[in-house]
């Protein structure tokens, strides 16, 4: 069954009541969350998505927010924060952990099909071996569940391992296979391979900042990969550890990111905090029914985005674009002399 089936109206109706119920459940089960809701006087009914109280995603870096007892925590996920910052901590019980794995699989099945595909990873094996697993390493490791015969494009020194790629393509190049990597790594290493990847399905993520610096946008990215290695099935995705299992997946035509049925986005004007109109940029709020063990079901991110259209694309629902990260607030304080030098 497809997880890209609900038109916006049905989706909103289904999600609003489920998320309102989750809000009350977390209010009961997570005292710090309850204290926040009390302090901002957030009360039901929440009839529309936009009326749900949101948490700034950074609170998961500064506070322990969980709605299950400590002995029910099955897994604690952490993100590598930027330098000097605490990582986010996300607490999953068995049920939430199972749901996130299941729903991530259901989302990716949409573009990968039912069977595990042979998998080419645009990275080096060392990123998943490092005992202090980086966000990149964790991302690769997570995605490896969806492939088989994992082959790394880069050797441990970070150079292209042309032999390994050739051997992989000799084995699998004529059938459908999965290619995964971080956007910038893909751009850097895949184009020069001189290999025929036309049977590949590329899944990539990780931000556009470094590519934007080289004046490469998504359209150019897709055009060049198609022209230079035959990759025409390309899906960018947007997701975060604080809403693990929820990925917003780019449609086949590259016309935006789509929300699976159990999730949605609200773009908020950071001045009025009201929902921004289609085409108006604002802060991205992500909502998902998967966070049942921690109050991460309605999160305000520090990413800017814009809704490009509603129920008008390859899949139903909102179609949106991530425009980049909001720069962190910096104050002109007295306590900063040497700083970053």
């Amino acid at each position, binding site marked *: 069954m497809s997880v890209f089936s609900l038109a916006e109206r049905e989706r909103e109706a289904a999600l609003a009541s489920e998320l309102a119920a989750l809000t009350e459940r977390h209010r009961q089960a997570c005292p710090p969350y309850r*204290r926040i809701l009390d302090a*901002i006087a957030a009360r039901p009914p929440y009839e529309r998505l936009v009326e749900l109280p949101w948490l700034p995603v*950074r*609170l998961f870096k500064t506070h322990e927010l969980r709605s299950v007892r400590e002995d029910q925590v099955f897994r604690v996920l952490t993100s590598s924060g930027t330098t000097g910052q605490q990582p986010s901590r996300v607490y999953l019980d068995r049920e939430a952990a199972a749901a996130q794995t299941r729903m991530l699989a259901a989302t990716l099945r949409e573009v990968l099909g039912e069977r595990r595909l042979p998998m080419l990873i645009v990275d080096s094996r060392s990123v998943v071996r490092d005992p202090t697993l980086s966000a990149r390493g964790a991302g690769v490791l997570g995605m490896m569940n969806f492939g088989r015969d994992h082959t790394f494009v880069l050797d441990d020194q970070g150079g292209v391992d042309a032999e390994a790629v050739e051997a992989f393509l000799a084995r699998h190049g004529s059938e459908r296979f999965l290619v995964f990597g971080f956007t910038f790594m893909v751009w850097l290493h895949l184009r020069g391979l001189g290999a025929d990847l036309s049977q590949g399905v590329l899944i990539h993520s990780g931000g556009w900042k470094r590519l934007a610096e080289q004046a490469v946008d998504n359209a150019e990215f897709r055009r060049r990969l198609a022209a230079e290695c035959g990759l025409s099935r390309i899906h960018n995705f947007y997701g975060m550890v604080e809403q693990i299992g929820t990925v917003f997946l780019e449609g086949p035509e590259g016309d935006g990111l789509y929300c699976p049925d159990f999730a949605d986005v609200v773009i908020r004007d950071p*001045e009025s905090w009201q929902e921004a109109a289609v085409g108006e940029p604002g802060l991205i709020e992500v909502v998902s029914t998967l966070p049942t063990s921690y109050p991460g079901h309605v999160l305000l991110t520090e990413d800017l985005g814009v809704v490009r259209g509603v129920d008008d694309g390859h899949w139903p629902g909102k179609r949106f674009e991530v425009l980049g990260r909001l720069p962190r607030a910096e104050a002109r304080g*007295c*306590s900063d*002399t*040497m700083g970053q*030098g």
Partner: protein
Amino acid sequence: MLDDPKLDVRFPAGAHVPVEELLGELGGGLDVGDERVREFLSAFGRRLLRPALARRHPELGSLGFFLRPSELARTLEGLGTEHVRVPRGLVFHIPPANVDTVFVYSWALSALMGNRNIVRLSPRSGAVAEVILDTLHEALTDADPVIAATQRIVSYGRSDGITAALSAACDLRVVWGGDGTVREMRRHPLAPHARDLVFPDRSSFAVVRAAAWLCAPRAARVTVAEGFVNDTYWFDQAACSSPRTVFWVGAEGDCDAARADFCEHVARVVTVRGWGVDAAMAVEKRVSTYGLAADGLAESIEFRGNALANVTLAAAATAPRQWLGAGTFAHARLGSLAELVMLVERRDQTMTHFGFAKDELERLARELAGRGVDRMVPVGSALSFHRVWDGFDLPAEFTRLVTVIK
């Protein structure tokens, strides 16, 4: 940044030199209150007060005011003693990177006391620092050559070598900019006779007598609200002397009414002045205030647009000391001024006040007995630099006394 063993001399504008060369060329020969320094500083201050400049950068107006000849004379008058006052020698200043005017206050007082000075200006310093440097150069044209021979403002990136050499060479090291910087600098030893003058992380609060607020004429309340907004929004409330918590003193009903009226006035000033905050700051304020609520410190949070946020503390004892973002105020009630004695911490620096008599404040200062609070100034004066700062009499710190008995 690479460890470059050379530094850029920015005043008097010059070369890219190794630290030994910088130290070698620095001459002496100034007296405490040297006439040639006074002339130079007055000329520099006059230029800062030019209307166009002061309009564009109001903080330069305050600085120019501080450097008026009469102010300089007053600074020197306070130093009378039976001993002979002499300069300390070579003073090495490390000012904060992002409050552009601090380096001038610190350096000007030290120069006035006859010291040779090396000021380390951060390579990240802002536009105002450039204006200041240009203005210093203008004033230098007519100045006695002794100024150029004795004063240096330099920039260098992260270089332990240079910091170590300057630390070893100086007689007094002045470190502004917080606990981290102070710890960092203390890794570099001073000469045995030399000493540090440090300005670590501080935090500040305001205290208002509710009954006095309620009785004050409207015009007075407007003026105080304007002063409060200046105290807090000018440096995004991150200056060490900008208040973060407002304590309301009085009966509960009075405090609630006074606070409500005060917040109305502040909101109006913020709107009229057009103070806004950008999206990043707006998010920052949500993160910090929601965090206070999560920790059980905030009973309620109220946002008036993005520019003004009011937090009601669950208890006065948990007043936050950390920066919460521009225009974020914690409020708590006290039965009497004396209750502050239990609440004040060593890091509390400036107490801005409204509605208290001088003897009440002096009594509080004595009761605090040095456990915290170095300045008690009226609301609106939090950012006004004074030669006595953080509890130090700076002109005195910048000099030594020679005992002469006949």
